[in-house]
């Protein structure tokens, strides 16, 4: 492939793949997108991410970068002159990294348990999920974005989950807005941005695909 070419390997409704897409869109970078079938992984994916064999993978100058937050940071460093996502100040930058990491450690794992589990286990998952969102809402405070006045790293890390809220809410029988109204306002604000609205999947389509997955793997 040509030296400067940018390629992104992604799949379906992965919120991690969406992070990379949003970052690329924010920077106005042209790239080739390759949709991976995770039940039949391509030789390219296996070659580019032999350790985890997961998406997203960004390929730039023929070299792979793996793990969504590492990809977003890489994009921000290489195309640093437009739409910076990470703050310049080391402390604020570290705070952003901490909260993005929090999304992975707490929000993601709890959210998965919400749609996979049932009964008491699901109740615990719901509580953990909403608690993690409440912490994020507290950190957001009155700022328009997690990045302050402008859309930033933590915004990119969290916003893809918004198109999955309908799935969690339907399976878990709750509404995020009743617990975290400010977070929903924040999400709607982000959706005004083309990089976000063009990237996020339709929430009903996400729900249908999860329902189909659960049915196929008899998780009901």
């Amino acid at each position, binding site marked *: 492939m040509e030296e400067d070419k940018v390629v992104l390997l992604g799949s379906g409704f992965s919120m991690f793949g969406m992070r990379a897409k949003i970052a690329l869109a924010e920077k106005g970078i042209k790239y080739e997108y390759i949709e991976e079938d995770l039940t039949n992984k391509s030789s390219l994916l296996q070659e580019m991410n032999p*350790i985890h064999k997961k998406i997203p993978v960004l390929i*730039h*100058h023929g*070299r792979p*970068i*793996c*793990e969504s937050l*590492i*990809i977003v*940071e*890489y994009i921000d*460093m*290489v195309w640093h002159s437009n739409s910076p996502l990470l703050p310049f100040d*080391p*402390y604020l*930058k*570290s*705070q952003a*990294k*901490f909260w993005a*990491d*929090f999304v992975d450690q707490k929000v993601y794992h709890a959210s998965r348990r919400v749609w996979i589990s049932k009964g008491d286990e699901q109740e615990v998952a719901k509580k953990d999920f909403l608690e993690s969102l409440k*912490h994020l809402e507290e950190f957001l405070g009155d700022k328009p974005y997690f990045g302050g006045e402008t859309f930033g790293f933590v915004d990119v890390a969290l916003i893809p989950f918004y198109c999955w809220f309908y799935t969690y809410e339907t399976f878990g029988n709750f509404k995020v807005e009743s617990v975290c109204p400010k977070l929903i306002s924040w999400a709607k604000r982000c959706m005004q941005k083309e990089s976000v609205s063009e990237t996020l999947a339709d929430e009903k389509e996400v729900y249908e695909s999860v329902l189909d997955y659960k049915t196929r793997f008899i998780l009901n």
Partner: protein
Amino acid sequence: MAKDGEVQLFGVRGSPFAGRVQVALELKGVQYTYFEEDLRNKSDLLLKYNPIHKKVPVLVHNGRPLAESLVILQYIDETWGNHPIFPQHPYHRALARFWSSFIDDKCLPAITKAAFTANKEEREKGSEESLEALQFLENELKHKFFGGESIGIVDIAAGFIAFWLPAIEEAVGLKLLSSEKFPKLSKWSEEYTNHPVVKENLPQRERVVGFFKARYASIVASK
């Protein structure tokens, strides 16, 4: 105020995560005050500085707290520019971040499963996963250190493998890091633990082995 500002580190003696931060601070010659926490009776300060995870290490610089060892290490490297531990080039930096996360997301959980699970099948699975993870690291090691000729972020993150893993092996009667299977990684372990800054900041081995023995005993007892 001192030239570095006021730097405080909250840790626990023997913690590999607090140890990472100490190595980075010492490498850069940063003056700091160390506070030993009792995790069974966490201080008000710790709970104030890390209300989310309530864990160590926490670094406080000029009154501003930071948590999560790898996040702290990035902050230290950007604040004190001497003896850089992260590569400058975006691609190499991304690789360094990838491998440090690999240690925490894959190696540590696999080793913990291999050593500290009551269920025999789970332990065997953990051993398999640990050996696989160690093999990836073995293949990745191309110089004296992961950072090249001097230690970098991946070496500091992998300190767990160099010092704490052998202690776990002794405590529970496990052998994962053999020099036959992992010659480069074994040699690297020796080089890393003998690095003057690292050596000075390692906890007492007997205490660490003792800690792991007690942990193993409680797992076995709860079967």
